[in-house]
């Protein structure tokens, strides 16, 4: 009788083939309710992994996106810290406009100022109704082509050429929009469209009419007063065309970093700070994103452990109830490692199937739904941030966790004595 022993390796082609053969049939002929329940748990785990941290980060990302869209745009050129404005602005503006990557720009004048209402009716004993804030002089067409803030007008209308002594107010300047009373945050009371208010910038005071109210979650917009740049220049006495900041919107697909570097190479950084929208983000926002990411990962880890335990229990019970058949399989010569592979395949199937449905839900439904209907937080429109690379990394984590959670109980049952398994002995 000729006979030679062939060594057994878990990842041999034969064991993988037999493991897959068994797993496929076990899954196909398992109770649909059980399979559905396990996959449902996997979907929930996947959503927990991706959505929880995605929403946490999305709260801040929504804020960052809004600052980019409504204020800085893709690249922002702003006054150096030790200067009052950007020197040589006309040449810089001409240079920027000549760049092929640039779609639109909005040069802005900006100064600190204050607003006063009820000055006509106020008695000497009354407290003045004032609010501080930045005042910006803009070209309405250019500003709107960059930031589209005309769409954020909630009362009245946007500025137009020839709007003499008319202003737009950010909603944080008005009490009806911010009904809080703190000494550090004063707002204007009883001011609406058509109300005349006093605008003071430096030593110059002018009576202006409120033409529109802008509602924005970007502080730089919500706390600002906007007026025509031509009007504002005359107020601050600036005739040299030097502005305070220039927001630059790039054509789709253009790289802000490349444009920033190009401007710096052209020497613009000698006169102004040149930053991409990311450079201009306050560091605390980046810190919050990192912190929320960490928190999200912590919550996700709990979900991952729960999923692993679920799979462990499911596979353990499955293997335990099938112990006799596992014994028979080993008895008729089926390699224990092939049987282990069959459980690994089943676990991976549950994880992949659950993740696939989860991916569909996230990218086919949740991300578009959050984009269309962001969560309305006071400081941002919360979106769901789910970068594909991070999502697939989490799918990988889920698969590995389930694979291990499926393998361990299978290994525990399969390593038991073959005959004991067949006979149901402990």
């Amino acid at each position: 009788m000729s006979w030679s022993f062939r060594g057994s390796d878990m990842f041999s082609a034969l064991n993988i083939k037999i493991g897959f053969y068994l797993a496929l049939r076990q899954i196909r002929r398992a109770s649909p309710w059980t399979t559905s329940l396990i996959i449902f748990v996997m979907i929930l785990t996947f959503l927990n992994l991706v959505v929880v941290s995605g929403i946490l980060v999305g709260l801040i990302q929504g804020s960052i996106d809004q600052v980019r869209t409504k204020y800085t745009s893709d690249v922002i050129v702003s006054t150096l810290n030790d200067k009052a404005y950007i020197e040589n602005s006309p040449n810089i503006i001409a240079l920027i406009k000549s760049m092929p990557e640039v779609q639109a720009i909005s040069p802005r004048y900006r100064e600190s100022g204050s607003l006063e209402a009820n000055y006509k009716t106020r008695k000497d004993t009354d407290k003045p109704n004032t609010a501080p804030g930045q005042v910006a002089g803009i070209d309405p067409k250019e500003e709107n082509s960059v930031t589209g803030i005309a769409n954020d007008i909630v009362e009245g209308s946007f500025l137009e050429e020839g709007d003499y002594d008319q202003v737009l107010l950010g909603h944080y300047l008005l009490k009806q929009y911010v009904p809080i009373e703190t000494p550090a945050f004063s707002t204007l009371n009883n001011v609406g469209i058509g109300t005349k208010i006093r605008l003071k910038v430096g030593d110059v005071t002018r009576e202006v009419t409120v033409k529109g109210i802008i509602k924005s979650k970007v502080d730089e917009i919500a706390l600002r007063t906007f007026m025509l740049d031509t009007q504002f220049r005359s107020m601050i006495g600036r005739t040299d065309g030097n502005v305070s900041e220039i927001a630059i919107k790039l054509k789709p697909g253009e790289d802000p970093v490349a444009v920033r570097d190009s401007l710096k190479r052209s020497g613009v950084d000698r006169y102004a700070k040149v930053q991409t929208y990311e450079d201009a983000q306050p560091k605390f926002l980046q810190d919050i994103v990192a912190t929320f990411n960490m928190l999200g990962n912590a919550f996700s880890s709990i979900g991952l452990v729960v999923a692993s335990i679920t799979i462990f229990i499911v596979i353990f019970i499955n293997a335990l109830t099938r112990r006799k058949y596992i014994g028979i399989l080993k008895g008729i010569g089926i390699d224990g490692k092939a049987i282990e592979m069959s459980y690994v395949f089943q676990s991976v199937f549950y994880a992949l199937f659950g993740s696939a449905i989860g991916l569909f839900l996230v990218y086919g439904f949740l991300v578009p739904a959050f984009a269309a209907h962001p969560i309305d937080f006071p400081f941002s429109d919360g979106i769901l941030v789910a970068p594909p690379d991070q999502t697939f990394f989490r799918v990988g984590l889920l698969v590995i966790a389930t694979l291990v959670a499926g393998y361990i109980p299978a290994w525990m049952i399969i390593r038991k004595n073959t005959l004991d398994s067949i006979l149901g002995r402990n």
Partner: protein
Amino acid sequence: MIQTKNLTRTFKNGDVVTEVLKGIDFAARDGEFVSIMGRSGAGKSTLLYQLSLLDDPTSGELIIDGHEAHSMTPDEKMQFRLVKFGYVFQDYALLPELTALENVALPLLMQGKGKREAYKISQEALTRAGLGKRLGNLSSQLSGGEQQRVAIVRAIAHRPKVLFADEPTANLDNESSKVIMDIFLELHREGQTIIMVTHEQPYAKLADRIVHLDDGKIVSTTGNTK
């Protein structure tokens, strides 16, 4: 040829030691049909498990075709069971999630045969056993007799050197039992070595030889009683 020399099997449960096999000297020639009989607890199933490498003896020697089986590693025994042995269990032991065809094909696939070849062999074998129309049925969709026939086909489809059967008719009615024994006899006529444990005298008598066990020892051997 399968041979044992002074084979013992002892079970320990705490301080209680039970000696189930007490120095068995047994031999079965190639092509021989041997029945093992005895009352409950005599050790007949335990002996079958030793012979078929499903269990390890406590002491003694087990030699199969010149190979010292008692000193094989678990993986070597597994490979030996796959290639050289076939098993028919009392309760059929078909895998519930596999069809009749898949149950038979599985050991063939494990031996490295391609799916097409394994299925072809299995289909032919099942058809010969009168199960040609039951290929796609799960075990739950087969009668007891049909399940046992599938189990026999699974055990012999790869043409094993030895077919072991542990009370193969215990759960069957008379008619089904007769069909099963007819299959065994036909296999035996074709030269198949069969070692069968049974407590049913009429079926035991169909074998070339009956080995009687009592209290872990072979007490008698009767031959050619057919």
